[in-house]
């Protein structure tokens, strides 16, 4: 394992942290949630309930950093060994979250996803070994918006075994989502002991926690459900245009989230994550494929690691509208940066058109990117000592390494091979195979991957319980039934 690539000198990181801490005292953090303000006041922060601003002292920040866990795990539905480690050297990948569109064809047409698309996605993520977690990837358009968040989790729990990165769109639906998780895990205790899901909670730049996300953060902390802060400074729009200063803003927002979670429940698991972006000064958009976006990611991950925090990034995505060259190189660039900085969870596989659209083909192609990036990160391993002198002398001027025992001993460990998605054959073979693009090959692979899917370990009673919980919520918001589910 190579060491994490550092973009910033240690002294600069320390300065960023101290500037972030200073900002929590002046001007303070805006908390648009009464309970959050109350909790901070009780913990000793100076709170102005009218302006909704809390001024947090360095002591309170340091105290919170003492109790926050450095490492925790997510467990699969089966309850077996953990599949995700937040903290330490672990690097995991999961798909992008909450896409509102689905790429409908290879020509770049998009449509709103429905239940069947969502289920197909969950199954694909389940069978792709490069992905260690599910995410509540897309918003299904065939149910009412009010249950959009919990319906995603409901669908996932029916089909997934891998743990899931999720999030709530409302304060009240968080409770339904928790109920779903408890039903799948068996009890609140068991869920606390073996977390199955992590909730994204997003501060609003600059320096603000909205009513919703603050409440979600508090509720997660209280229930011992992990949360993942997704601070998203938009450099040049909602945050300073200078990359380093955007990282300062990210630091301040994230530290305030740690304080909130730790005063609710010392030891509550929480992740130093984000989805920052450079601002495109011509189009006014938020490019995920910009080098500056990756630099902010790299900087804040280094800050998080310096503080001993588990880390998360949204990387490996693209702003392209079609699975093309731009889509490929932006995704690869982000994924490579992510593995080199050593983020524990890298979210974004399958996502394009900023963070709007998901593509089955891109998801499958991204797993090849993940393999390449992981292999690169694994680095150059020393297998023999001397490294090569004796071997090369022995072999002399003959190139029969292909038949040497040394090759047989090491080649599987040293050399990785892509799947048939990646063309490393001759031109003739490519021509004979139908002159396909990688995207076409990915498209053709979808069905064979789906065929590998195995149902999860939940009992019929548990599936029924999940449906009852989701249906209750649906009825509450004016629906009389939920879309039927396939096996």
């Amino acid at each position: 394992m190579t060491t994490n690539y550092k973009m910033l000198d240690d002294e600069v990181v320390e300065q960023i942290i101290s500037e972030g801490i200073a900002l929590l005292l002046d001007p303070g953090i805006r908390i648009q949630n009464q309970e959050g303000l109350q909790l901070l006041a009780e913990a000793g922060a100076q709170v102005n309930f009218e302006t909704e601003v809390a001024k947090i002292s360095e002591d309170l920040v340091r105290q919170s950093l003492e109790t926050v866990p450095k490492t925790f795990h997510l467990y699969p539905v089966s309850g077996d060994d953990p599949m995700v480690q937040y903290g330490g050297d672990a690097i995991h990948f999961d798909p992008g979250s909450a896409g509102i569109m689905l790429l409908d064809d290879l020509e770049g047409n998009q449509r709103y996803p429905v239940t069947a698309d969502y289920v197909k996605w969950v199954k694909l993520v389940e069978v792709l070994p490069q992905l260690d977690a599910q995410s509540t990837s897309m918003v299904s358009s065939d149910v009412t918006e009010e249950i959009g968040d919990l319906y995603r989790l409901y669908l996932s729990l029916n089909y997934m075994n891998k743990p899931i990165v999720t999030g709530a769109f409302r304060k009240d639906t968080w409770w339904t989502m928790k109920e779903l998780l408890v039903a799948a895990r068996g009890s609140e205790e068991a869920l606390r002991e073996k977390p199955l899901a992590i909730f994204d909670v997003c501060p609003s730049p600059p320096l603000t926690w909205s009513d919703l996300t603050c409440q979600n953060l508090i509720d997660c902390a209280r229930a011992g459900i992990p949360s993942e802060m997704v601070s998203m400074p938009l450099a040049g729009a909602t945050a300073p245009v200078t990359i380093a200063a955007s990282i300062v803003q990210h630091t301040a927002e994230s530290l305030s989230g740690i304080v909130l979670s730790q005063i609710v429940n010392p030891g509550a698991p929480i992740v130093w994550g984000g989805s920052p972006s450079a601002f495109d000064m011509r189009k006014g958009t938020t490019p995920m494929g910009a080098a500056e976006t990756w630099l902010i990611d790299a900087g804040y991950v280094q800050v998080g690691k310096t503080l001993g925090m588990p880390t998360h990034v949204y990387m490996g995505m693209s702003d392209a509208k079609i699975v093309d060259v731009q889509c490929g190189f932006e995704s690869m660039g982000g994924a490579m940066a992510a593995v080199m900085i050593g983020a524990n969870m890298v979210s974004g596989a399958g996502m394009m058109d900023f963070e709007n659209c998901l593509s089955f083909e891109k998801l499958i192609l991204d797993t090849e990117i993940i393999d390449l990036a992981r292999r690169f990160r694994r680095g150059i391993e020393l297998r023999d000592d001397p490294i090569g002198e004796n071997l090369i002398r022995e072999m002399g001027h003959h190139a029969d390494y292909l038949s040497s025992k040394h090759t047989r001993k090491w080649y599987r460990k040293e050399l990785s091979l892509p799947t048939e998605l990646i063309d490393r054959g001759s031109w003739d073979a490519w021509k004979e195979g139908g002159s396909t693009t990688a995207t076409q090959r990915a498209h053709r692979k979808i069905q064979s991957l789906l065929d590998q899917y195995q149902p999860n370990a939940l009992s019929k009673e548990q599936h029924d319980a999940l449906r009852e919980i989701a249906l209750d919520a649906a009825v509450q918001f004016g629906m009389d039934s939920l879309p039927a589910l396939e096996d």
Partner: protein
Amino acid sequence: MSQETLSEITQSIVLGESEDTVRLTDELLAANVEPMTIIREGLMPGMNIVGDKFATGEYFLPDLIIAADCMKAAMQLLEPELVKREQAFQSAGIVVLGTVKGDIHEIGKSLVGTLLSANGFKVHDLGVDVKTDEFIEKVKETGAELVGLSALLTTTMVKQREVIQSLQEAGIRDKVKVMVGGAPVTKSWAEDIGADGFAEDAMGAVKIARLLMS
């Protein structure tokens, strides 16, 4: 006992343990097992399993070559015994193989040679940088039925055409099939120069060789 040892030989090829292949072949010969039985029931099944595993993606090039080396090592013990019995392992075909003049690339050509041998062909490997005349002479000398011409450079692939023309001039073009290969060589080039066969890779070359000999 011998049945068990035969399947151990098969296994040694699958695992690429050439010392085991040699030791077990020795044991069987000492126990008076017929060399032909050792080939047909011990060695060939191993090569077939390795070939299958390569086709399904479980095995890779080193496994293939190492298995072929096992086969070759065993055949060195078996051939004198076959001669003693006035038997011959019926060869799938006699092949003259080499990398053309001006080109010193060896790996692809040797791979093809190794795999052809392992699949029952009698291979005369002329090595690299082989003059056109040498090919012609060797074909005449050995009565070869198949010529394999390797070229890795666009500047040397023209020599493949030259060898074919020389075979013609020597009046033996209709006695041999010619297959060509190498990185710049394509199917259309093969057709262009009047070769009989072309393959993408070493396994493909074995397939084509069999086809040309059938």
